[in-house]
């Protein structure tokens, strides 16, 4: 057994995993029902089974037909981009839009190729002013501007 198409091999595995996951969870927790009154498990079981079957086809094919290798994963941008959106999401309510935006910009800029402190700082200021004006003032999104610990916000 030799993997001739790594890309398909892993894709096949991914589909099988997802398919089985949905089938198992649906069978375990929800009712199948009948074809007249289909239960909540009916559709996911059928589709999950189908997905697993297709995954198997892809997997078997990958052992027979040659195909491309899996391109290298780059963890640096992946990590920083994910971290920056999470930081924004969880800081927005406690720290307010400006500080959360600055956190996002700095973290994700750090994940890029070149990080110039000054540039990023200027960019933050511009983007913060823009977002406060457009999103909070203009579109009235219910985002806090000041951090939580400031009782009365001087803006708005």
């Amino acid at each position, binding site marked *: 057994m030799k993997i001739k198409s790594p890309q*398909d091999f892993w894709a096949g595995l991914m589909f099988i995993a997802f398919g089985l996951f949905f089938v198992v969870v649906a069978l375990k927790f929800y009712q199948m029902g009948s074809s007249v009154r289909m239960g909540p498990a009916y559709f996911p079981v059928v589709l999950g089974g189908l997905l697993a079957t297709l995954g198997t086809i*892809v997997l078997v094919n990958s052992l027979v037909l040659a195909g491309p290798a899996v391109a290298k994963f*780059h963890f640096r941008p992946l990590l920083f981009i994910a971290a920056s959106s999470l930081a924004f999401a969880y800081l927005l309510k406690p720290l307010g839009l400006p500080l959360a935006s600055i956190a996002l910009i700095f973290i994700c800029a750090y994940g890029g190729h070149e990080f110039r402190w000054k540039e990023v700082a200027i960019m933050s200021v511009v983007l913060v002013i823009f977002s406060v004006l457009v999103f909070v003032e203009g579109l009235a999104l219910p985002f806090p501007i000041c951090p939580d610990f400031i009782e009365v916000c001087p803006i708005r």
Partner: protein
Amino acid sequence: MDGIFSNLAIGFVEVFKLQPVTMWGMTLQHVPFNIIMCLIGCLLGTLIGVLPGIGPVATIAMLLPVTFNLSPIAALIMLAGIYYGAQYGGSTTAILVNIPGESSSVVTCLDGYQMARQGRAGPALATAAIGSFFAGCVSTLVVAMFAPPLAEVALKFGPAEYFSLMVLGLVAAVVLAHGSLVKAIAMVILGLLLGLVGTDVNSGVLRFAFGISELADGIGFVTVAMGMFGICEIIANLEQKEHREVFTSSVGKMMPSKEDWKRMVMPIIRGTALGSALGILPGGGALLASFGAYTLEKKVSKYSHEFGKGAIEGVAAPESANNAGAQTSFIPLLTLGIPSNAVMALMIGAMMIQGIAPGPQVMTERPQLFWGMICSMWVGNLMLVILNLPLIGMWIKLLSVPYRYLYPSILLFMAIGVFSISNQPFDCFLMAVFGLLGYVCVKLGCEPAPLILGFILGPLMEENLRRAMLLSRGDPWVFISPSKPISMGFLLASVALLVIIAAPALRKKREEVFVEET
């Protein structure tokens, strides 16, 4: 025919009416107030359409209290302007940065963004604007002339018909991918499964939520689209070798070339026709229109090998289709009082609060309002094209901004947009998860577009299948009985399409495997 013209005349008179306006204590005589409202709506719509994640629904809801100080006609003209302005703006973001803000611009991303990367953002944006304008004009006429009979057609669509239409749509979704056929089908099914997360419409049972209450209403489309397109694209761009810019440095021409014009004409016409037809169907009509048009072009075009790599047809057809659909989606509202999507539901809300009961009687009881609104759609489309063509210059300049400035801004706007949907961190978390999933999929040679379409259509398909089975008391022949010719037609068309897709794929299978790139 004469009737139509006199009606349109009533409408245009209403739209261009000069009226006294009091503002800040000053009263001005002879102000073309309705036109100004239309312009404001279009501008605002374009703005929110461009901003990823901020949709017309939230904006219109927010503006509703403001509109109560306006006359009903001015309010409705403005709100309608926001709606189709957002369509225009949405395609701009799709083309420039590969983010579909609305489900109907998913397919615009495929070729529009590729064109932008090749330095052809100008022609892509112009094509989208021109296609949308043409579609807007034609479909406005369709609304004016055929609204009542078309509404009757829409009523012919019951659960069985919708289910069969969804099947056809899903088969068509496979065509969107240009890699392996099996993997594309698997991605559609994965999308269908992800769409099932949340409360089951039929039984009320919560599925695949694992005790996370934020998942109870399912995963939002915007969240998935931002993750799998937006986040994934940023990561993919950042992993490129140092200093390589994402977009070719030469900004390129702004307007389409002669060759482009020639190539876009037929797709625009076909897209408009398809969009006008499917737009009248509530629930997923406009979406099916846009990628139905794409699929059609990919099959009939002699440039089909260019699709997915920056074919102008791949922008012209879906853009025309979704704008045509956006106009004709007013038909169920105007003739039956039934909203065909969330924006239309809000329009009904706006009308009712203004003391107007939407429905067929509006046409006879308040002709100025009815025809004024229809004419304002045409005027609005004209405004949008006039507004957007010069803006193209600005947009393509934006692309010459170094990517290291561009991506933090895009990410910030996406995060703000996604957060604003339900004002909780969880959606941003999900966006990151889908970014990760999208990245893994791309690495494994699986394209995200079929998944997203499956994701949108999945819940609709299950809902209608189960409803059809309930109504027929479990008779599976309900989908192909002679009493349901529409449903049968769609299913036959799906089989035919599947054969057309599968035949060359089976033949070329060995080569296909090697044609993977990026």
